[in-house]
């Protein structure tokens, strides 16, 4: 049994079960969304490795097979097969929501995503859509095995035709996943597994959608803009508590297409910005955020835009994870330096 599985099961015993006021963690929120969308639209099919009887290694799809036995499938272990068959399902008229067990294994389906999923629409001049949602547990922070913790969102964001979504909380997870499933375009939906069972919050019951191209101002402030997404939003919020400056926290939510407007508006107000990403530094999404600020708000800046990122090294084995992932201390220090510049 892998370390990740052990941890998952321990958390599972302590964590699951819906409260009456719909307080959910991120795993439960994704599960409820899949349940609701399968109930709403019978063209939705869910498949991937171990998602059926086992309910997924994180139990994200637990119980769904009992409710929708005709539309949930345990597939052979073959990532390209999973994503490639979804192209066929999609053109036929299904709405496949496929799970790749860990985002670190999407590269085995990367050619399908890049060569076909992202461009079937443009190369058939709109004759066919690829209404596929590719879900995967993503990112680090849970002491997982090698290849289980990568943040590769920049690579997907570099592919025109895809939408790349990273929720940072249970409520957004529902709103964004609902939109992703209903979207006629393909969406890579990356679920920060560090947040899977980190906390609960009230998730709206019934219809709840969040538009795929809108960043969210999580908390308003006047001194520094702090831009991040996924697990780093929570880390950023922790950092805000440790600094004296008035910080405006922006959660990108969808990293591609990027809602640069919300970032630019925030920077025009504060004149200072720190961008935080879990991924390695070079050519990450943060590089694009900084470029957009240069394009549209350079003359509003009172300090250089600071970045807090992982180093340009492969994601380390679990014992050295702490040396890799940005934490609240690093973020707080960057905010202080930017505010004091």
């Amino acid at each position, binding site marked *: 049994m892998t370390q990740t599985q052990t941890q998952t099961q321990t958390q599972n015993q302590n964590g699951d079960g819906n409260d009456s006021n719909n307080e959910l963690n991120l795993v439960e929120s994704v599960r409820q969304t899949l349940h609701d969308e399968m109930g709403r639209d019978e063209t939705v099919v869910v498949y991937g490795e171990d998602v059926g009887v086992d309910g997924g290694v994180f139990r994200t799809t637990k119980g769904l097979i009992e409710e929708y036995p*005709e539309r949930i499938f345990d597939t052979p272990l073959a990532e390209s097969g999973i994503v*490639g*068959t979804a192209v*066929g*399902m999609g053109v036929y008229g299904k709405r496949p929501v496929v799970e790749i067990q860990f985002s670190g294994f999407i590269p085995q389906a990367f050619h399908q995503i890049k060569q*076909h999923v992202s461009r079937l629409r*443009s190369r*058939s001049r709109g004759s066919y859509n690829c209404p596929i949602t590719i879900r995967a547990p993503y990112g680090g922070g849970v002491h997982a095995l090698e290849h289980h913790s990568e943040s590769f969102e920049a690579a997907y964001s570099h592919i025109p035709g895809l939408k790349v979504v990273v929720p940072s909380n249970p409520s957004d997870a529902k709103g964004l996943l609902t939109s992703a499933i209903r979207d*006629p375009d393909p969406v890579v939906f990356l679920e920060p597994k560090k947040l899977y069972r980190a906390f609960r919050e009230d998730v709206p019951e019934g219809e709840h959608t969040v538009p795929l191209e809108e960043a969210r101002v999580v908390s308003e402030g006047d001194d520094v803009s702090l831009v991040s997404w996924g697990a780093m939003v929570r880390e950023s919020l922790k950092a805000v508590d440790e600094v004296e400056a008035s910080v405006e926290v922006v959660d990108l939510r969808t990293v591609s297409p990027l809602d640069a407007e919300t970032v630019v508006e925030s920077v025009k107000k504060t004149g200072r910005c720190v961008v935080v990403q879990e991924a390695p530094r070079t050519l990450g999404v943060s590089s694009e955020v900084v470029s957009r600020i240069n394009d549209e708000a350079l003359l509003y800046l009172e300090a250089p835009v600071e970045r807090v990122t992982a180093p340009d090294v492969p994601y380390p084995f679990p014992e050295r994870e702490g040396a890799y992932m940005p934490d609240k201390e690093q973020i707080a220090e960057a905010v202080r330096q930017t505010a004091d510049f």
Partner: protein
Amino acid sequence: MPREKVASFEIERLEVLDEDGNLDGSLEPDLSDDDLVSMYKTMKRARALDERAIKLQRRGEIGTFAPAIGQEAAQVGSAYALEDEDWMVPSFREKPAFLTRGAPMEALLWYDAGLEEGAEIHDRNDLPPAIPVASQTVHAAGIGWAQELEDDNSASLVYFGDGATSEGDFHEALNFANVFDAHTVFVCQNNQYAISLPREEQTKSETLAQKAVSAGVEAVQVDGNDLLAVYKATRDALEKARQGKPQMVEAVTYRLSMHTTSDDPSVYRDEEEVERWKQRDPIDRIEKLLRRRDVLDDATVDGIEEEIDSEVDDAVESLKQKKADADPADIYRYVYDEIPDGLLRQMEARQGVEE
């Protein structure tokens, strides 16, 4: 018993019409003279289009493309076995199959000339060409799987070459198809070369058909230059696939011309080999049979050729107009269902520069 045989298999080969136009009547598929003439005409149309397109490419009027000269029976025979509502998933050398499915000749030429308009789908359930080798096989498995889920009596057919059988996607597709009872027929056009690598060096498998056996998929080998054998094998395979039993057909054929117009096959194969395969030309073979049956004579063949010449001329003419009308802003329009704000700004900025 310390050792016992736990699996064995055999691959059958089917031939109906030999190189001299002699027919094995016991295997002859149920096709009328009209069907045969229609298939013959489509093969001739494909050949004429390829020959003209090579000339256009040499003059720089169209881009690099992959001719299918020599493979007409493998494609027309198999595509003709499809019903209108079935799905066709092509690779990148399927002009004859597209013509069989009713695609306009002019659209195929637009595609070769580098205009996406040529990949716009006509009134059949066909996918546009797929360039990355074997990548389309999994799409067909997905369609076939959806057909099974919907209790749809239709089927999907996917084309790929000998080289594709060395790719992972081919094996994933066969495996998925059989696990999920997909209505998929896998048609391998074994044309003997993956660009320059001969089939014997591509794989040590005795046949390519037997690669399907490892996924539990039934497979047959046919003489791919024998229109009637290809049709019969595909028709039989489709019938089983419609019942949720995916199938593979290996059509043994030969690419008489180049891999693409950028390729010079004289570097890696000798003229003698090419000459031997020319004797097995798939179009000549069916023409011999039809002449022997008095369905065709010199006058009808001349008439067919004149008709085709004029169709090719029209297609070439339409290309000039299509190029003149091509709107550069098209590159922005079909990427997403709705153009995202950021991309819209890029489009407007670009248009501003042009104006």
